[in-house]
């Protein structure tokens, strides 16, 4: 489901001089690309994230650690309610694009088995200056982690498994739909 070919290649994006980018030339990531059962194409996504109006590109890669809570982790398995996760991530990305006037905003999350060291989620943001790209990137990943209906199951080396690290904001807010973000 990874569709990095939908983005303009780096060479095309860097040909100068160019006027301000139009939405048609640099489209938002297609909705279908937000959830992928395949390995995320980090190189392809980054190659397509360059833009003549962007002086900063920030890439966040959420990767699988080899341990959690003192236990050795073999791999993670991600599950998603894909229609709603896709819709929600698209809304988050579009909101970030508007709020920080991003030239590029990409977010993809894996489902299925993800090995230690592999990328489970990637967010790429490109903007005129780095402060906007950093802030938008943090905003997108925080909201995805709290709100998108995606779950990870940790499979440990001892053979046990556990659905892990749930958002527990409801314990503070009293509402499963209200969240507290690290950046607040």
């Amino acid at each position, binding site marked *: 489901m990874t569709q990095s070919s939908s983005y303009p290649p780096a060479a095309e994006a860097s040909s100068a001089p160019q006027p301000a980018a139009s939405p048609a030339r640099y489209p938002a990531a297609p909705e279908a690309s937000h959830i992928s059962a395949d390995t995320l194409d980090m190189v392809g996504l980054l190659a397509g994230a360059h833009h003549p109006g962007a002086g900063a590109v920030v890439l966040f890669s*959420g990767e699988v650690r080899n341990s959690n809570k003192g236990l050795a982790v073999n791999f993670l398995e*991600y*599950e*998603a*309610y894909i*229609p*709603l996760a896709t*819709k929600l991530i698209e809304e988050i990305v579009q909101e970030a694009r508007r709020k920080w006037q991003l030239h590029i905003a990409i977010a993809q*999350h894996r489902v299925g088995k993800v090995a230690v060291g592999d990328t*489970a*989620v990637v967010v790429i943001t490109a903007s005129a200056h780095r402060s906007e790209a950093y802030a938008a990137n943090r905003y997108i*990943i925080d909201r*995805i*982690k*709290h*709100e*998108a*209906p*995606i*779950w*990870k*199951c940790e499979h440990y080396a001892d053979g046990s498994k556990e*659905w*892990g*690290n*749930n*958002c*527990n*904001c*409801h*314990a503070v807010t009293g509402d*499963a*739909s209200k969240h507290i973000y690290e950046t607040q």
Partner: protein
Amino acid sequence: MKIHVYAKLKDYFQPEFELMETIGNTDELRAVLVKMNGGADELLSSCRFAVEEGFIDKDFKLKAHDTVVIIPPSSGG
């Protein structure tokens, strides 16, 4: 009413099942599910509900032919 559950809720219920009871809203649905499996009570209290690919709140009027998706707290990333 068809019910779909995800993640840890599958430790308590089949991933998909059907309820024949008359259920008017999410509070009533939660009560029916707790009656089916009391061990899921705490988890269900932190879940969100969705119908037709959109979140619903407790005032949403459920219908017999609805498919309700029960969504535990997210743990992506």
